[in-house]
């Protein structure tokens, strides 16, 4: 095989892996949109907040220490303990559930039956709020996130594939980041457990009922408010997973909230209402943008991925306005 061919394969494989990382973020959007019709702008900030909380617990940071010190003139920063990753993760899950309850109580409850754009706007307010709150609680310094996820290229694969190229050509073997493999496994586990949850549990079935038809679900006695809390809690946990995966690479800092921007083209491509759509959309976007950057990028100066992802999604949309797997928009007169 020629190195060029192998390189293309490598780009595609890495595109798929990058796509999984996008899908992880997109999943959170889909969950909330499907169950409540809310386009949750705060999803990215939720990922940041969850990751900050996780690191905060792990390193024994005192919440609001900066504020407390400023007000009382004290100098407290740390409880002086470090928690094992698992415990910190569990505690963060608890926080995200509390967060979901608060959001429902304080905001969503008052906005039932509003137009989508109003709900969207409310989540923007929420994003602002959490951005400030997260920084107040945990400080805006960068935090190192280490929950033991392996990183770096897979040596085994590199050696295994190095000999595939034609004799005499320079080829260094194929590259895949182990973090991406972990992310893929996590994404698969996540999707399977979400599917199991929605198929085989009472709450899950209620969830699906609400997604299908709000009115009908209400009339058979499913509490919409409870459903919203559950959905937001799950989305919060998905956000935490995305935060861990992305934060492992870059450290936990403000920019983590910007990963939402990578998920949006995935959403419109896959459809706002489809979990398989989020996965497959992510894969298409990942492969598409990586191939474009590899093939066309050098000719036009590179750094094309941001806009190309959107253009790709746009092209798909022109042919299928509801996204690949979204519910068909039926127009009736």
């Amino acid at each position: 095989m020629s190195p060029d061919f192998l390189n293309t394969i490598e780009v595609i494989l890495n595109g798929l892996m990058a796509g999984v990382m996008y899908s992880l973020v997109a999943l959170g959007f889909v969950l909330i949109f499907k169950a409540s019709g809310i386009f949750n702008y705060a999803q990215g900030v939720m990922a940041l907040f969850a990751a900050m909380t996780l690191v905060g617990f792990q390193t024994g940071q005192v919440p609001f220490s900066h504020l407390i010190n400023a007000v009382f003139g004290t100098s407290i920063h740390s409880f002086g303990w470090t928690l094992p990753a698992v415990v910190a993760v569990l505690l963060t899950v608890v926080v995200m559930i509390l967060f979901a309850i608060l959001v429902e109580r304080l905001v969503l409850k008052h906005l039932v039956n509003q137009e989508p754009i109003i709900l969207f706007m409310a989540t923007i307010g929420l994003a602002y709020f959490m951005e400030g709150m997260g920084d107040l609680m945990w400080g805006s310094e960068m935090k190192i996130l280490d929950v033991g996820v392996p990183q770096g290229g897979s040596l085994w694969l590199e050696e295994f594939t190095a000999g595939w190229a034609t004799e005499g050509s320079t080829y260094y073997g194929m590259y895949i980041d182990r973090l991406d493999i972990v992310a893929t496994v996590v994404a698969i586990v996540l999707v399977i457990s979400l599917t199991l949850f929605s198929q085989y549990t009472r709450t899950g079935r209620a969830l699906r009922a609400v997604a299908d038809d709000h009115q009908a679900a209400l009339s058979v006695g499913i509490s919409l408010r409870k459903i919203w809390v559950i959905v937001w809690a799950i989305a919060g946990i998905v956000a935490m997973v995305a935060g861990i995966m992305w934060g492992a690479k870059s450290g936990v800092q403000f920019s983590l909230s910007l990963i939402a921007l990578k998920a949006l083209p995935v959403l419109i491509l896959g459809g706002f209402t489809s979990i398989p759509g989020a996965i497959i959309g992510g894969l298409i976007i990942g492969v598409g943008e990586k191939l474009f950057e590899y093939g066309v990028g050098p000719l036009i100066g590179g750094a094309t991925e941001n806009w190309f992802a959107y253009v790709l999604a746009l092209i798909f949309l022109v042919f299928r306005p509801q996204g690949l797997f979204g519910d068909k928009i039926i127009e009736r007169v």
Partner: protein
Amino acid sequence: MFYRQAGDFKSSYREDLQTFALKQDRWAYYALLVVAFLVVPFIINDYWASAVLLPFLILAIAALGLNILTGYCGQVSLGTGGFMAVGAYACYKIMTSAPDLSIFFVVLLSGAVTALVGLIFGIPSLRIKGFYLAVATLAAQFFLVWLFNKVPWFYNYSASGQISAPERTMFGWAITGPNAEAPVRYLFCITIVVLLAWIARNLTRGRIGRSWMAIRDMDIAAEIIGVDPLKTKLLAFAVSSFYIGVSGALFFSVYLGAVEVGEVFGITLSFLILFMIIIGGLGSILGSFIGAGFLVLVPVLLKNVMVNGLGWPTDIAAHIEFVIVGGLIMGFLIVEPHGLAQLWRLAKEKLLLWPFPH
């Protein structure tokens, strides 16, 4: 008690069509204009101009433009920052290639160029709707910013890749460049704002505005009445982009003076303008102004109160500012989902009937 409809009869349809139906509203409006043109220029200083009034006025133009597209025509766009960049770069290119052209026409031409670009990016709106369209407009946002950054022609091949506005004058007064005085810059902007607000009002009160709203409220019914959806949506895109382009040109030339495209016209700006019209009120001219005022003024005010007034550390103040602005957005939406303009309207209706509750 003086705020009453009684005795204010309309005797012709022309009178019935006027913008401020109530005499008291009319007076208030004229008084506001007098203050804006004859009082403010004499008391304005650099701080008020650069920190509050110029950004308010210029972003209000962008909000007007986006409100035409989103509020009136129902097409949600997140490409505002990109279109403002088109206006800014058009302005720069025209300023430097035709140095003798009056800055007023430069700004209008920049708007026209942006209108053309907006027209092109409006085409997908025929098939794509709602949030799908909103996200699709992000393609314009990212692509335009990338383009201006990548193609050296746009920044006249300068080594820095930034554009800075040279000095341009009107009637002998410097409008752009470092020597422009605060009152002059302010007057230039407010003149354009009043003109454009008046035009926006005219466009939205008649046939054109109704065709936009018809598309927004029920596009199928609109089509069956005779409204061509493609033409109507494209017109909304063009007009909206014109406003946004003018805003971008002013933002660059009069307000900032120098611009780095990714930093200034990034996606945050797109979102900011969208927040303005939603908080202010979709489909409301007044709402565009209230929204712009709210999002420009509140952070400055909070900062000044917390940092200068209470002496808090700047970072804590900034975090709390986020918390408060976010809380206010949610709070307002819960109180009145249709924006501050609607809140204002309801308050006036109550006042008309005061002291009777209904």
